[in-house]
């Protein structure tokens, strides 16, 4: 039995058709205050205490631990006030960023990318906090399975429901398809998913020809699938980069600068007071 995370599908995605809530730590937060409020709420606490499956120690339990013990012990065992202040300035944001940073920035980036490119790869298009869909789900969504009972119509509708833009997605497949779609698009209205689908499924000869080509292309590994996977990867990379930059460069420099400034000021004040006493 493996000790670390056993689920090989991304641990972000247990959302289901029936809207089961999944508090795995990807809380919809932009501000520090909200993260802490969610964590220390009753529901957050009970989720943490009955350790969810993903990861042997959930992100939230890590934060509890870090705040109580890491910060607490560093505080208690610090030798002077300067070390205590350094602990606060440096460690509080660091802990939160280390645990929540990557998903937070990755999700923010992902939702922007999804809007710009029209590729649907968020798990829940209305909720940034649920994160991106797993790679397995993306394969399901972008690779047409002929078994699908609802057929190609259902396949397209699913992409539309996830806020994808069919025109952009299908045009990406290859140059010929892009041309075909343009010729079919007599009124230049295919950026509207509904109109695109209406035309594609209207039964006319050219629509059926295009539909056949699409079904054929999409049923194997295709460029749209690769692009969707890559966009998901890209947003994760941005999440890592921003987190690493903030944690590794910004916070330590801030910390040292604060120490220096505070003590320079303190000493300057003392000098001024001494001079004032001398003069008077």
């Amino acid at each position, binding site marked *: *039995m*493996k000790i*670390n*995370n*056993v*689920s090989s*599908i*991304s*641990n972000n*995605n247990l959302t*289901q058709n*029936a809207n*089961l809530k999944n508090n795995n730590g990807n809380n919809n937060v932009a501000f520090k205050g909200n993260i802490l409020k969610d964590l220390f709420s009753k529901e957050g606490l009970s989720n943490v205490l*009955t*350790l969810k*499956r*993903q*990861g*042997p*120690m*959930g*992100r939230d*339990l*890590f934060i509890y631990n*870090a705040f109580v013990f890491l910060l607490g*012990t560093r505080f208690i*065992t610090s*030798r*002077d006030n*300067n*070390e205590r202040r350094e602990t606060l300035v440096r460690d509080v944001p660091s802990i939160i960023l*280390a*645990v929540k940073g990557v998903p937070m920035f990755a999700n923010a980036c992902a939702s922007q990318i999804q809007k710009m490119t029209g590729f649907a790869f968020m798990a829940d298009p209305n909720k940034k906090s649920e994160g991106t869909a797993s790679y*397995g*789900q993306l394969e399901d969504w972008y690779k047409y*399975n002929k*078994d*699908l*009972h609802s057929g190609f119509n*259902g396949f397209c509708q*699913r992409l539309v429901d*996830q806020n994808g833009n069919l025109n952009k997605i299908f045009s990406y497949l290859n140059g010929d398809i892009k041309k075909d779609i343009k010729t079919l698009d007599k009124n230049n209205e295919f950026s509207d998913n509904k109109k695109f689908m209406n035309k594609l499924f209207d039964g006319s000869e050219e629509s059926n020809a295009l539909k056949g080509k699409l079904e054929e292309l999409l049923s194997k*590994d*295709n460029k749209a699938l*690769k692009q969707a996977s*890559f966009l*998901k*990867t890209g947003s*994760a990379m941005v999440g*890592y980069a921003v987190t*690493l930059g*903030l*944690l*590794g460069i910004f916070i*330590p*420099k801030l910390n*040292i600068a604060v120490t220096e400034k505070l003590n320079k000021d*303190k*000493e300057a004040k003392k*000098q001024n007071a001494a001079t004032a006493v001398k003069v008077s």
Partner: protein
Amino acid sequence: MKVASVPKTNLDACVCGNSNVQHQSVKLGETPKDSVSFSGVKDKATGLFKWIDKQGFFVEFLIVDTISMICPRVLVGLNRDRDKTGQYNYKAAAEEAGREILSGPSMNLIPMGILAAVSAFKPASHMNKGTLGAFAELMNKVIDKSPSLSKVSKDDLNTRLANQLFDESFGHLSFANGDKQKLKYKQTFTDLLVGSTKTTKKFFNTGAFDRNAEEFESVVTEINNKGFVKGEDKASLHANSVNLCKNEKGEPLASLTGKELYEDFHNYSKDVMSKLSELKFGSDSVKKAKDFVRDISDARIALKTTSAIAAFFAVGTFLLYLPKLYQQGKVSPAEESAKRAKAEGGTNENK
């Protein structure tokens, strides 16, 4: 037909009684017009992040911690006040290194160790709370249908539970080829799931188990794709998942991917079923069995909470004694730095 050895592409062929399997073929020397190249930076990056994703929070944390906390802090510590002293500040660097290397990963490793130990002894505690509840409910229904429990073997119990699971989760679906297809899927589903109880899961060598789990998940995906609810015609968003039982609001008690269900079934059977089948039941076997199932579920959930709290305090204790390991000397580098800044900020005193 031996189900365990049926390859994925053949399943449909077997179900429909047709043994011809179509493969896409590309003639030698011919490049398909829409061939997608499998090399390139994009694919490598995707592959790398797919792997990181698979490993879970621990690897993500390790990467973030090492690159952003350990390395930079050590470097910044080395260069601390270098402009004033003209030397590398080895003391500061050593303290930073000691503190970061020891505290970060240990906060993950200690709980991982505790949970692994607990799961080894009581496998059912590895399951989610919702799943345990769902399984308990399913077991109650199985017990209701099996009045003479003392004569039922462990394998038989597993089969009945798997059947019940299929009925609960997929019973509402219809299939294009009618009930015959549904029954064949039920048979495959049940056989594979019961097979999970027969495969052993060794600590580091989980290859065979994982392969079977993947096969099971592909069957679940196929059932979800092919099955439909009369009157609805939507493509399922999560074709690889199974919804277990429903509460009063109509929401499922648990939603698991096929692989997770496979593993949970294995754990549940190892822990609960083996004990259940060994109990001696007298006249009121139904009530006794139900009480047993409920009690053991409660016990496992309590064990999860206890182990979480134990992990919490174990990490805390380690962190409490950690500073003794990395602190060198009585004066912190921060204080030394402050002293240097004071010396700089103040004017020269005559005294």
